[in-house]
């Protein structure tokens, strides 16, 4: 304690502390700011990955998105889409698309994670964009579950419903269910805004916020139903259907039994 106090009085202390403070601020800023972190994370891709990705892209994606990923009349440009967009679209089976339409349906995933990474690396090499998260960014062990619920209800429930079951959007499109979404997909969806979904940047919904939301969605996926059978968590519609069909049905069967003459 004494030695610490003594050193603090040293004239150089002020300079060192200032430098340390700046460094720390910079580090935190780098972690928080989406643009910076996107570029930082993308640097981990190897040259081989980028090369492989380029080949895979040329085979599977270029017919719509163009050989250079510049897009076409039927597909958007991928320059600046970032690795996160590739990861989300391909790992959920939305891409490659069978036929152009207003909303890409979820199909079977046809690429391995390594292949997806390679394509992501190539798209990331075109221009900076939202990057796939590191494992540390998806670590929800310290996330605040209740805060995640609040943020989910404010930012997500209006489309995906309180239970994460999805909901209707305009003209035949829909917000998908989140029941099968992985933490990585939840994250990449938020930063890239696929299809109708708007982008929730890391500046307005910080990494910590996103971790809380991911934790909340994971709790929804756990199928905890304190009261019993959830009836698909569709709210009063299924409850009403149930009471009309099964509930009333059961009581009418008893009523008929009461009325039938015994043998």
């Amino acid at each position, binding site marked *: 304690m004494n030695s610490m106090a003594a050193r603090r009085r040293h004239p150089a202390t002020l300079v060192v502390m200032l430098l340390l403070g700046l460094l720390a601020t910079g580090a935190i800023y780098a972690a928080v700011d989406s643009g910076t972190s996107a570029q930082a994370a993308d640097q981990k891709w190897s040259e081989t990955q980028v090369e492989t990705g380029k080949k895979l892209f040329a085979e599977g994606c270029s017919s719509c998105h163009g050989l250079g990923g510049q897009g076409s009349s039927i597909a958007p440009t991928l320059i600046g889409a970032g690795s996160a967009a590739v990861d989300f679209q391909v790992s959920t089976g939305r891409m490659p698309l069978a036929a152009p339409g207003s909303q890409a349906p979820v199909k079977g995933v046809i690429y391995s994670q390594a292949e997806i990474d390679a394509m992501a690396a190539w798209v990331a090499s075109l221009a900076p964009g939202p990057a796939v998260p590191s494992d540390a960014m998806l670590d929800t062990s310290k996330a*605040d*579950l*209740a*805060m995640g*619920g*609040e943020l989910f*209800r*404010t930012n997500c*429930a*209006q*489309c*995906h*419903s*309180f*239970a994460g*079951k*999805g*909901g*209707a*959007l*305009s*003209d*035949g499109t*829909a*917000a998908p269910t989140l029941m099968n979404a992985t933490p990585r997909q939840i994250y990449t969806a938020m930063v890239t805004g696929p299809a109708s979904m708007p982008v929730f940047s890391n500046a307005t919904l910080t990494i910590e916020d996103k971790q809380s939301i991911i934790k*909340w969605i994971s*709790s929804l996926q756990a199928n905890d*139903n*304190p*009261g*019993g*059978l*959830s*009836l698909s*968590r*569709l*709210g*009063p*519609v299924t*409850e*009403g*259907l*149930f*009471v*009309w069909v099964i*509930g*009333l049905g*059961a*009581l*009418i069967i*008893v*009523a*008929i039994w*009461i*009325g039938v003459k015994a043998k």
Partner: protein
Amino acid sequence: MSAVVKAGGALAEYTDERLGIAPFMKRSLNKVFPDHWSFMLGEIALYSFIILLLSGTYLTLWFKPSMTEIVYNGSYVPLDGVKMSEAYASTLNISFDVRGGLLMRQIHHWAALFFLVAMTVHMLRVFFTGAFRKPRELNWVMGAGLLTLGILEGFAGYSLPDDLLSGTGLRIAEGIVLAIPILGTWLSFLLFNGEFPGLDFIPRLYTVHVLLIPGIILALVTVHLMLVWHQKHTQYPGPGRTEKNVVGFPLLPVYMAKAGGFFFVVFGVTTLMAAIITINPIWAFGPYTPDQVSAGSQPDWYMGWLDGAVRITPNWEWNIGNYSISWNIFLPAVVLAGAIFTALGAYPFIERWATGDNREHHILDRPRNAPTRTALGVMAIGFYGMLWISGGNDIIATTFDLSINTITYVLRVAVFVVPPIIFIITKRICLSLQRRDHDKLLHGIESGNILRTPEGEFIEIHLPLGDKEKAKILGKVDHVPIALESGVDENGVANPKGRTARLRAKFSHWFYGDNVYLPTAAEIEAAEAHAAHDYHEQHAVIDDFRGLEITSEPVLHSPAIGGHESNPHQH
């Protein structure tokens, strides 16, 4: 006589010495109730109401009707530290910290759904069988009142926990109140003690939910049942049943055991549902705040039609000077709802005026025998169904992968087009069923077996009508439409009452004009004599046929053909 029975007798004696109720008791215990499953639907409603009173009383022990904001620190971890109203927190407390509290909540909510389902189907039964006719019109009106109150009570009840779903419902209700011309804004400010949501609405709603409406319902139910008791129950047509009697079982012991037992069954089924099926998981919805909403926000089923009507009404709003009329909300939520309940309550009087039927009715109509009424009823169900579908248009869109916009456009048309089609189809079906009844009386039941007589003629075998079936058909009342009177009197002067009379006659014709009259007693007699003859002849042929069948039987078992010599008339 067992000791128990003796003791009961002694108690009756003790009571009678003080109250003099022996004659009443004698009459009551002997009171006859007809037995039919559809007569139990009203009982489900009554029993659900009792279950609601019991479970609701439990819930009041812990529920705090307060909108004061607190921070939750109870045992439901996912909401730990979240700001919420005391009402919501106490509902979480009931669900997660009171043993059996969640069960009580779920019983209460399932029972509420049962209450409204049962009232609805009971009302449909009464409607389609014409049980509302003289002398029971007053009980119908009371029933319509009970249904209306039940819907309000249900809405008040599920709004109390102040969760995100019900809060959204309250917000919509406030928007509807605001849309009432002239008074709306002030009404809203009075109800909420100022702006939405304020701090007072839930405490106020609580009093309405636990005292005011249940009190009125209890009083109405009592009178409703006293009238059923006093007027005696209606019965379906059948053997030995006339307008002047009731055929069934006496209150003591059979009806008491059956109806009493049924109470326990209803309570049991409700409790079993509450044991294994989640209802209204308010913890999953989250606490109400006016800036959050969930996709797929729906009201309970009995409000769904109203929400549906609001969804499909086009965006009409009139601005006259400084004032606005929001037809897009006022029309479906206030005008339509008011019109529907008024029409419901007034129906017996409308039908009586239109048909001029002033007789007492204790034997129920089979729905086919009142085709226009039945068609009107099914049409109303169709209309209600269209609104219901509209209320769930978003769930339908996602479930069946359709466009919500297309569904809405289609429903805007369907709500007007589908019900009349349903009316026409239902009426046709009823009339053909009447015709079939008519034929059954004359020719018996078509067996579906075709016979070729030895002369080469093909005939269908008709079996004689069973006594029960015959009695059912014969119980029909042939209504005759009111005759069209001349619009002018004998001097050629227009009758001032002529227009109304003509309208009424037209209405009556519309109502009863297509009626298929029962054959006369003489026709039936002749037909029966004829049928007996036919039957005899047919049976001769059938016997021949059977004989052949028997003789051919060995063919199936062995290649040896034999038995041709056997007597074709043997059995």
